[in-house]
């Protein structure tokens, strides 16, 4: 395969990243998507738009988020390596996205889309959510700007993410439990699309990840790229050089794209996307679309999907509601195909163990989503030398997950 001059120019004008991406939507939505593309291009070229967003990022979201040296975790892993007779143990940094307002990276993207919706004169915002982090971020910004907010959430997820459901309601959003299909994130997205098709005139669909029809994957990535841009500056300040590796959990993949994108053209920076392996890839109960799936078309884009031989979409499984989706953003699928990013997997059990290690050693309770990245940091860091700089995206805080974790650990709350 010929290597492109830059890995950062995608998508093309039709929304393709290699064979992935595109605009696979019903005709009713097509004019809206073209209008959105135009509006986003105009906003992107408008310094006033960026300046206004920067103001809110600083004063409302609380950016920049710190790049934190995880000293005790680093020491712990060097200890583990030493006991195994090795001298490895990379220096681990966390990009602290969990310190953002609303507790995850999701707010970066939502802020951008809500400001765009305001520019376009749309007053009703709809969103899908899995773990509830995107729903909470959307409800928060709708409250802040006085917009009507409807959040679609699978009935199964409503049950396992109760704290976030209550948060959304407190923020004035209407939360609609979705009873169709597998009652999780993919069904919430179907229902949001059905709403959008019905309410085309006043409604803006705020997609929570780097997926969906063009221009969403590229637009959401752009809004999330602040993670990588800050990381670049911060690591230069702290270490005087670029990191050796980046690692992030991947469901739809927005926190990973945000961290990776500004580094894609730096050949010395190795990148790992961590997919959720659930009970293990061999069990068939997982959410690892690249590792265990094939290219297909769903929710407006071509990308790796979990499905059967007839093209029927399979139900994903992960302990983390935010990763429980049978697809992945199309840019990740492309980065996998060209070999620029390595996609690996982490099981429920490995993520649970990492969740506890991080809580005890660093005093940070991570979201179960990024606990998957952490699970692989525990492995990869010991195999790398001590002067290796590894940055992990700590994309969300784990308060919302304590009930799920307690249940798995057999503890009563």
């Amino acid at each position, binding site marked *: 395969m010929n290597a492109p001059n830059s890995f950062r120019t995608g998508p093309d004008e*039709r929304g393709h990243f290699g064979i992935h991406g*595109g*605009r*696979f*939507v*019903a*005709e*009713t*939505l*097509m*004019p*809206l998507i073209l209008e959105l593309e135009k509006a986003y291009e105009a906003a992107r070229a408008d310094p006033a738009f960026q300046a206004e967003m920067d103001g809110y990022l600083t004063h409302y979201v609380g950016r920049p988020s710190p790049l934190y040296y995880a000293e005790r975790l680093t020491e712990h892993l060097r200890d583990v390596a030493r006991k195994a007779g090795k001298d490895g143990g990379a220096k681990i940094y966390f990009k602290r996205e969990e310190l953002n307002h609303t507790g995850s990276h999701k707010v970066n993207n939502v802020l951008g889309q809500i400001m765009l919706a305001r520019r376009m004169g749309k007053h009703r915002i709809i969103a899908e959510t899995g773990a509830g982090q995107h729903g909470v971020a959307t409800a928060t910004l709708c409250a802040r700007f006085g917009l009507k907010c409807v959040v679609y959430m699978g009935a199964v997820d409503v049950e396992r993410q109760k704290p976030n459901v209550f948060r959304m309601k407190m923020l004035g959003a209407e939360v609609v439990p979705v009873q*169709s*299909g597998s009652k999780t994130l*993919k*069904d919430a997205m*179907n229902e949001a*699309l*059905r709403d959008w*098709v*019905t*309410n*085309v*005139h006043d409604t803006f669909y705020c997609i929570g990840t780097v997926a969906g029809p063009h221009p969403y994957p590229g637009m959401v990535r752009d809004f999330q790229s602040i993670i990588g841009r800050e990381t670049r500056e911060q690591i230069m300040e702290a270490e005087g050089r670029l990191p050796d590796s980046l690692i992030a959990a991947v469901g739809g993949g927005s926190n990973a794209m945000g961290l990776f994108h500004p580094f894609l053209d730096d050949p010395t920076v190795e990148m790992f996307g961590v997919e959720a392996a659930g009970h293990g890839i061999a069990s068939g109960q997982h959410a690892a679309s690249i590792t265990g799936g*094939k290219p*297909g*078309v*769903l*929710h*407006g884009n*071509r990308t790796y*999907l979990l*499905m059967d*031989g*007839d*093209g*029927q*979409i399979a139900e994903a499984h992960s302990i983390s509601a935010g990763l429980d989706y049978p697809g992945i953003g199309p840019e990740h699928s492309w980065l996998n195909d060209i070999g620029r990013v390595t996609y690996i997997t982490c099981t429920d059990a490995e993520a649970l163990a990492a969740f506890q290690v991080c809580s005890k050693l660093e005093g940070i309770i991570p979201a179960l989503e990024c606990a998957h990245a952490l699970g692989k940091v525990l492995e990869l860091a010991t195999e790398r030398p001590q002067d290796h700089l590894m940055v992990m995206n700590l994309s969300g805080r784990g308060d919302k997950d304590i009930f799920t974790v307690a249940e798995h650990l057999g503890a009563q709350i």
Partner: protein
Amino acid sequence: MTSPTTSPTRIDDRFQALAKEGRPGLVTFITAGDPDGATSLAILKALPGAGADVIELGVPFTDPMADGPAIQAAGLRALRAGQTLAKTLGMVKAFREGDATTPIVLMGYFNPIYVYGVDRFLADAKAAGVDGLIVVDLPPEEDDELCLPALAAGIDFIRLATPTTDDRRLPAVLKHTAGFVYYVSITGITGSATPDADAVGTAVKRIKGHTALPVAVGFGVKTPEQAAAIAKGADAVVVGSALVETVRASLDSHGKATAETVPAVEQLARALADAVRAVRR
């Protein structure tokens, strides 16, 4: 009135015959394999006798983004009963053994076709006797995927035009459309709001200003009265959710077909056909 395909299809022939008769047509939609393969084939075979002029056969998909609860549920019933795209093509083949003239249009989403393989699918569909395709999630922007190969294979690609398709966009939507144009009468999902017959008539006139193809109108048409009212301003009217809902209502408490299933669907189709056939144009 020919389509850009190599020779007239059964769809072209049927709409020419309707024009000669001076009446609008009835297009009936059922989901292939609902509630099971054998019953579904029996319904399919009964539809022309009940007065269906064109048949849309829904290809079940787990994630039907443009469909309302009735057709969503029908698709899941069919999938649970083991329906696949290959079996749906088998149904068309079995139907063709007894009916050489009624056009069959497969309607669904792209993924099952993509996974089956576009070239293999088109060859098998043509051989089975499929006349047209409606693929909801393939707008003109994705014509390379299936539309152009289908036209080359002699299968009509029928596009949806919607209330959001304005005059600027309409030519692009109509460009590679063949057989007929399917006007979606509402912004929304199948089987939801009831369309306004006057507004639909105006919209059909607008589309006809851009194309010589017949225009069929659907989404939200449920009763014989509504069908007749819509048919006054169109070349054909499409009824789907109401027929699929009739299948559901006829099932036993385990969701299995009963002796009522086929006759109930046949009866509704006949009532719809009687109402539509009474309309003179």
